[in-house]
Each structure stands twice: as structure tokens, then as C-alpha cells.
């Protein structure tokens, strides 16, 4: 349509058309600029907001109904619970980068105990075998060794890498010195499926929305925390526990350990060896 006008337009008419064209070009560049500014602002805001999106929710310090996997002294003044999925990249990053410090400076020093709960997510197709591999390693007192192997080696067995994660897991089992035969039978039977599902149920009861999620004292925080953040939460939880009369703190500790029957002592043993 515009073209017709150009062809028929002569003299003043052509000038009007040229003017209109210049106008539409100007409108175009303004629109382009506006989109660019809005886009940059939104992306920048999301990126910055993302770093701060973490929120601690106050939760009741109710003892867990599932046992999880314990590391450290069950009677430590503060309890850290982690809900994680073995195939979740954020959990892997946390386990490789931050967790060694947490173990060395918080768990081993007796400031807090650490409990891992499986929270397998449906979009990760190899995470259930991984949880099984870890649960069966726990039978032989080597949960944490398998936990570390799984997280450190995540890219070689996750759903994008392979359809047969068991091949990789068997290698891990050999490397950490498990009785591979017993372990394989246990994994193939999915002997500890109830335990894994129990751990996940504990997470669902606590309305865990994403992995990793941490519960430290009376705070529930989602997202991978840094060492400093964990230390700050542990310190404030310890202060809170100390300011209360001694009884409830001890009570919380003992209920938590009584809620963790059979397998807990074995895991504690494994933890002490580390």
C-alpha cells in the first residue's frame, strides 16, 4: 500500500510520504530502544534478585520422622538437615564446593550434626538408582563415601550422560571398598526403597520446594548456602538453644536420635571414621 502511494505521489505528496517514512523509522528506533532498556533492566533485576531470593522460613523444631543419614554427633546442640537430589546440579555443586568446609569446621568440631535426606525429583531419571546405591552403601557403613562419589561424579552418570548409571555406580562401589556382590543385590532389589521414600516424605511434610533445602535449628532455607551463611545460621541456632532452659534442647536431641533407630548407629560409626 505504501508503495502505491509512492508511485502515484509526486511533488508535495512524495514529501509527505518521505516524512511518514522517516517518522516510522524514528518510531522503530524508539521502540527498539525501549525494548532494549526494559529487557536489560528485567534481566539485570532477575539476576540480582536471584542471588537474594533465598528466604528463611521459621519452622517448628519438630524432630524428623524419617532418619535420613547422620554425620557427626547426634547430640550436638544444633541439627542441620539437608534435603537433596543426587542428580540435581545445585546439590552437586554444594556437595563438592561447600560441604567439605561444613564437615571440617562445623560437624567435626561438634557445633552441629548433619543429616542428609533423599529428595529425588521426578525430572531426574537416574536419581532413584543413585539414592539406592547410597542407601545400600550405608548398609556397609559407607553412605558418605558413596554420597561423595555420586556428587563428585554427577556429570558421568546423570540422565544426560547415560541410560545405565549402574555401570558407573558399580565402579564407585569397588573404589570405596564395598562388598560389591552384596551391594549389587541390595541395589537391584531396591531393598531400601522404603527408607528413601520415607526421607522424601519427610521433605514433603516440610513443604520442601526445591533442592537443596536446609533446615538449621528453626530455620528452613532453600537454595545452596555458602559456608558463611550456614555458619551464621548454626551460630544463631546455638544461641537460641543456649538461651532456652537446657531441657528442651536436650529433649530435641534425644527425640531426634530416638526417631533414628536401627541404621543411625552404623552411620554414626562411619561418620566417626572420616
Amino acid at each position, binding site marked *: 500500500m505504501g508503495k502505491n502511494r509512492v508511485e502515484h505521489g509526486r511533488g508535495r505528496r512524495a514529501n509527505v510520504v518521505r516524512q511518514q517514512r522517516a517518522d516510522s523509522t524514528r518510531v522503530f528506533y524508539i521502540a527498539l530502544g525501549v525494548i532494549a532498556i526494559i529487557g536489560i533492566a528485567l534481566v539485570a533485576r532477575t539476576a540480582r534478585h536471584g542471588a537474594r531470593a533465598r528466604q528463611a522460613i521459621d519452622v517448628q523444631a519438630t524432630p524428623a520422622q524419617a532418619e535420613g543419614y547422620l554425620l557427626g554427633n547426634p547430640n550436638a546442640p544444633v541439627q542441620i538437615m539437608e534435603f537433596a537430589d543426587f542428580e540435581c546440579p545445585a546439590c552437586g555443586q554444594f556437595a563438592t564446593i561447600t560441604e567439605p568446609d561444613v564437615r571440617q569446621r562445623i560437624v567435626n568440631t561438634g557445633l552441629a550434626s548433619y543429616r542428609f535426606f533423599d529428595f529425588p525429583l521426578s525430572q*531426574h531419571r537416574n536419581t532413584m538408582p543413585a539414592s539406592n546405591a547410597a542407601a545400600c552403601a550405608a548398609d556397609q557403613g559407607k553412605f558418605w563415601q558413596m554420597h561423595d562419589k555420586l556428587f563428585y561424579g554427577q556429570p558421568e552418570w546423570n540422565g544426560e550422560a547415560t541410560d545405565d548409571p549402574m555401570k558407573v555406580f558399580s565402579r564407585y562401589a569397588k573404589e570405596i571398598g564395598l562388598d560389591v556382590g552384596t551391594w549389587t543385590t541390595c541395589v537391584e532389589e531396591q531393598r531400601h526403597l522404603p527408607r528413601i521414600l520415607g526421607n522424601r516424605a519427610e521433605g514433603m511434610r516440610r513443604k520442601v520446594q526445591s533442592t537443596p533445602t536446609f533446615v538449621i535449628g528453626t530455620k528452613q532455607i532453600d537454595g545452596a548456602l555458602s559456608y558463611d551463611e550456614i555458619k551464621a545460621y548454626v551460630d544463631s541456632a546455638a544461641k537460641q538453644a543456649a538461651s532456652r532452659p537446657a531441657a528442651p534442647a536436650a529433649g530435641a536431641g534425644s527425640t531426634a536420635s530416638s526417631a533414628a533407630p536401627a541404621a543411625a548407629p552404623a552411620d554414626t560409626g562411619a561418620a566417626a571414621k572420616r
Partner: protein
Amino acid sequence: MKPRMLIALLALVGAFVALYLTLYKVGVIGELSCTVGSCETVNTSRWATFLGLPVAAWGLGSYVVLLALALVGMQTSSRLVAWAITVLATWNFLFSAWLTYLERYVIHAYCMWCLISATLVTLIFITAVVDLKRTLRPA
């Protein structure tokens, strides 16, 4: 407004959507935490990577190229540019349709930003065809 202007504007919007999804995939945005929601289901599925790169990064690249082509195309009435835009827009349209099919029938989850991108890609495709027809029309 000329079709190529419209393509440029749509491609810029698309580039930001793809940039957001790419940053999400790479982990700059958010905690890179794995959530129960469906955008995560889609973006962490194995179809979120194509030839070793996140699908969102491919999208970002193609939107930027489309934007550049459209801007160049505003300065010239070259048929080559019109063809290039149309070929790229068609490829994007087909790829996006395939992804939406996967979301609907295989992953069983929709990702809002992916659907927004699919809509943009469709609009660009239609505009590109209109533009090509105009360019090919004998002067």
C-alpha cells in the same frame, strides 16, 4: 512499519527471553536449585541441550542473527537478506514446533518462557514470509 522492522523488534524481545533462559540454564539466575515446578522440568530435561549447547543458547544466537539481518535488511532491499531471514525463521519455527511438541507429549510440562519464545518465532516466521513475498514481487 515495514515487516523487517517488526522482525527486528520481535527478535530483540526474543533475544531477551532466550538470554533469560540461557542464564537460568547456566545458573547465573537463581540458585540453580532444582525445583518441583515445570519450567525446571523442561529446562533440566535432556531435550534442553542440542549439539552440546543449551537450546536456549541456540535460541539466543538465532534471535541475534535475525535481529542483525533485519537491521541490515532495512538499509537494502536485497533479495538475499529476505531469503536468509526466511530460511532462518523457518528453521526456528520448525525447531520451536518440535520443542513445543516435546513439552506437550513427551515431557508433559510447559515452560511459560518457552511458549512465549514459540509465539515470537511464529510471528517472525509469518512476517518473514510476508517480507519475502514483497521482495520477490516485481517492482
